[in-house]
């Protein structure tokens, strides 16, 4: 995609702070299961003449705990809660159970081995 910046989890908060100083808008974070690793793409809008999307990509393995950006952008707490529920990622200070109930399937959006593509009824 256009305007990609790759970061590691150690430098995530620094990069996000740069966006916050520029008064950029946090659009959303997308989590993608790459198989062995997870990737979170943080989308920011720099609000120029026209809306302009900048993506911050961060790869991490599932057993790592990653920092939460909710201290800089409070609205990110909601989407981080969703990522915790849907991918069982570990994000510092974010509890699970935003969208899913305790008896729901665990981490439904992770790719499971041998899962067949079947029709949803």
């Amino acid at each position, binding site marked *: *995609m256009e305007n990609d910046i790759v970061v590691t989890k150690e430098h995530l908060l620094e990069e996000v702070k740069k966006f*916050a100083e520029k*008064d*950029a*808008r*946090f*659009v*959303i974070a*997308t*989590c*993608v*299961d790459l198989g062995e690793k997870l990737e979170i*793409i943080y*989308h920011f*809008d720099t*609000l120029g003449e*026209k*809306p302009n*999307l900048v*993506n911050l990509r961060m790869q991490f393995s599932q057993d790592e705990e990653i920092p939460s950006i909710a201290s800089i*952008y*409070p*609205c990110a*707490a*909601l*989407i981080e809660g969703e990522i915790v529920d*849907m991918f069982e990622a570990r994000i510092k200070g974010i509890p699970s*159970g*935003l*969208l*899913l*109930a305790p008896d729901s399937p665990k981490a*439904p*959006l992770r790719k499971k081995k041998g899962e067949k*593509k*079947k*029709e*949803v009824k």
Partner: protein
Amino acid sequence: MAKTVLTFGPQHVVFPEPIQFKLKVEDEFVVGAEPVIGYVHRGIEKAFELNELKKNIFLAERICGICQSPHSTAYVLGVERLMGIDAPARARYIRVIINEMNRLHSHMLWFGLLGDAIGFESYFMQVWNYREKLMDVLEKITGNRVTYSMNAIGGVRRDISDELQKEINRVLDFLEEALKSVDGVLRDYTMVKRTKGVGVLTEKEAKRDGAVGPTARASNVPYDMRMLGYDAYCDLEFKPVVVDTCDSYGRAVVRWKEMFQSIELIRECLSKMPPGDIMTKSNALPKGECVIRVEPPRGELFYYLKGNGTKNLERVKVRTPTFANIWPTITMLTKGCEFANVPVIVLSIDPCISCTER
């Protein structure tokens, strides 16, 4: 006085759908709020991965009941970009016409609900009566009142004939007159008293909390995805409606002005619409990833699509406008608003909970 926690929702008269706010109340004033969502989660993002490409259009439409046409537009635009095809010019104009008519009827619905919430039943019925004319013409064009199913990958499924174009123009003329006859609601004493200065969201907060749509534009942030020029918007004269009152009244004014803007945009589309095909056929399979952002009535809609060269998509992420507007609502609520104003504030973002949770 000690703080009391009052639960607002999940079932409440101003919400058609379930969402809960846990409000911390001191006397009559709200000092803290916490959203509780997850009552209507349907797992649509998972279903997107399991279903086939073409069938997903109908799934995308069913994420939201009212702004369903922008949902399928966003999905279809994303798949087209991944396939490397473009819809024909006429199809792009038809998409804009349907999306703008959708915005028009959604805003009229919202004004009806606003009248209902402040106890002005007659206004509510009057606006919904006018809206019915629009729904009828939409049914004539697309075949259904609510779920239009107009978009297909590579174009649209139905053409708009000359006869229907005349009918649309007639209805638009009627609506312009009719809406002007009830515009007194924005000057009405009770209405102004209930909304002015209620639910203040400053420009800085709107940017920090990521407000979208009329909520952002009422806080002086010119943030409208139609500026990106997707579909035929690049050929149309378009400037976002921006108001700087930063309160619930401003949000009503933005929606009011946008209705007339939509009418103008539809007229412009009808006059500029080129003849020709409405469908590009292609057998390519989507590969790569892309982000599509479109503007439904409630604000920015975000689609992330990742294809892997098969007829199933690898990942679809949907961020609906209300999801982005929940946090600004919390900011507005926790500024010490009166408890009686909570319904007006929540209504002013035009909440749509089922699409929030997908």
